[in-house]
């Protein structure tokens, strides 16, 4: 069964089109990264999946219509939408009591176990915790919920590097298995690269790239081209060319690695580099069209 199935998903705020017809198909056991610049429609797409906003088009999450059935849906999915949404007045013990009281799939013992590894006291109020600790607390709650789908929207925004690393480490080691599915929207692409199984670039409400990480690795290649072979390399139509320490680095889409290795040193690009290349390419096309 598809965990998320969207067809022609649209959302408009006044005259601003936030989602311009998005098709999406996410299978069980995937970790999907949703990457895009500010205002690209990432959060809008996630909000639609979480039943937080109405939308046009077709959308099924775990077989349900999120807008009409948010509360039932939340038994099987959970989300960390943005950082620091835990109520500041609540005590950690109250938070545990409350979630244990209302959530049929919450395992309090597990949550206490995760919290025991942190410096968070049961008697503290959320307002007394640092930003990193609030995120740890939220993650401890979410990981103690036996959910089929976890949605994360910029879960590590504003955290220092230690917490950021820890966040994905615990999520992968202590929580993720093939029965769960994770969708994460983030700017911090470099820290999710090794985590993802699937990647989607989204820009101005549209999906501009959608591939699995295996595809990503076979399709895209970055070559530090030997100066004498630059002309030959350019003939293969790189999607981006840039200079680093006086050497040309060219990014190719769908060119055989065998062909490229003759031109210089070949690597798999980072998601961040590919992202910049794709976005620049789109900006240039748009300019070209305008001119």
């Amino acid at each position, binding site marked *: 069964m598809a965990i998320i199935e969207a067809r022609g998903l649209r959302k408009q705020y006044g005259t601003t089109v936030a989602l311009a017809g998005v098709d999406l198909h996410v299978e069980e056991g995937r970790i999907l990264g949703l990457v895009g610049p500010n205002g690209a429609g990432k959060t809008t797409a996630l*909000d639609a999946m*979480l*039943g*937080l*906003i*109405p939308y046009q088009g077709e959308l099924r999450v775990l077989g349900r219509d999120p807008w009409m059935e*948010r*509360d*039932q*849906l*939340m*038994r099987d999915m*959970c*989300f*960390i*939408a*943005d950082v*620091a*949404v*835990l*109520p*500041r*007045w*609540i*005590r950690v*013990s*109250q938070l*545990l*009591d*409350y*979630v*244990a*009281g*209302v*959530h*049929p*799939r*919450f*395992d*309090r*013992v597990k949550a206490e176990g995760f919290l025991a590894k942190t410096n968070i006291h*049961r008697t503290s109020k959320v307002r007394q915790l640092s930003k990193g600790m609030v995120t740890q607390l*939220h993650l401890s709650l979410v990981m103690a919920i*036996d959910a089929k789908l976890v949605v994360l929207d910029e879960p590590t925004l504003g955290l220092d590097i230690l917490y950021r690393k820890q966040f994905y480490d615990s999520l992968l080691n202590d929580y993720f298995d093939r029965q769960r599915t994770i969708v994460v929207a983030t700017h911090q692409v470099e820290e999710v690269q090794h985590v993802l199984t699937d990647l989607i670039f989204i820009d101005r409400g549209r999906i501009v790239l959608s591939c699995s990480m295996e595809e990503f690795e076979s399709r895209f290649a970055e070559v530090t081209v030997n100066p004498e072979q630059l002309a030959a390399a350019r003939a293969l139509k790189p999607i981006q060319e840039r200079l680093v320490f006086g050497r040309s680095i060219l990014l190719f889409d769908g060119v055989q690695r065998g062909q490229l290795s003759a031109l210089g040193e070949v690597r798999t690009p980072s998601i961040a580099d590919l992202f910049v290349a794709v976005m620049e390419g789109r900006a240039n096309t748009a300019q070209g069209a305008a001119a």
Partner: protein
Amino acid sequence: MNVKPNAIAESSVASPSAVAADVPAARLLVWSIRRELWENWSIYVAPLAVAGLVLFGFLIRLIGFPARMRALSALDVAHQRDAIQGPNIMVAGLLMVTGMLVGAFYSLDALYGERKDRSTLFWKSLPVSDVVTVASKASIPIFLLQLLVAAIIVVTQTIMLMASSAVLLGSGQSASTVSTHVPWVQMSLMMFYHLIVLHGLWHAPFYAWLLMVSSWARRTPFLWAVLPAIAIGMVEKVAFNTRYFGDMLIYQLTGGSGIGASRDMAPLDMLGHFEPGRELGTPGLWIGLAVTALFLFVATRLRRQRGPI
């Protein structure tokens, strides 16, 4: 932490291996109400503080009480009754006003605050429907707060009664003067009835209105709640030179005892003119409850739609 053993037992029952059954709506409601009380401790602290202050003042007043009673014993029964019942009625009135203020400000913030501090995104990530959430928030000013205020009033009055009796006994006078003038059981029952029926049910549309504005306003819910009422009243006055809207609000506030009644006597006296059951038969009460249901329905729809601000 006393909740721990219990909670562990609970969670082992609801362990992931077991088929996660639905959490019954009643349990969701109870937990949501508990959550409201954790957040808004002013609901019980404010009336308790007022009761404490009044008691403190009353104890000081008791110093001169035996002498005053001696002087009063020469007077007629009506004066004696007033001297003893006076403070009792005053404490009830003060606590009722406190309850109304607490209820109003609670309702104005209930669905606005969670959007303002963005915690609505957390609450919405849990399997609790908007209907349960709004119901839990509405039940606070309409039922819980009123029960609590009634209980605090009765306890405070009892303490005052016992204290005056003790003081009278200590000064060698008969305490029966106090008990004959204060029919305790009747007064206590009436207090609960009054709070639930008038302050709860008759005032329900006001609280529901405040909750609705609270779920709708992007800023200054207080102004949005109050200004339209003033505007309607003023437009009516200018256009038709009538004041039906204002009268309607007063009618609802006073529990249908009429505009004349509310002007001619202090609201506290209403307790003396109480006929249990009369209010329940008034169509005004039921119309008010229908309006309450409408406002709460709209609040529920708005809660689903509105995100953090």
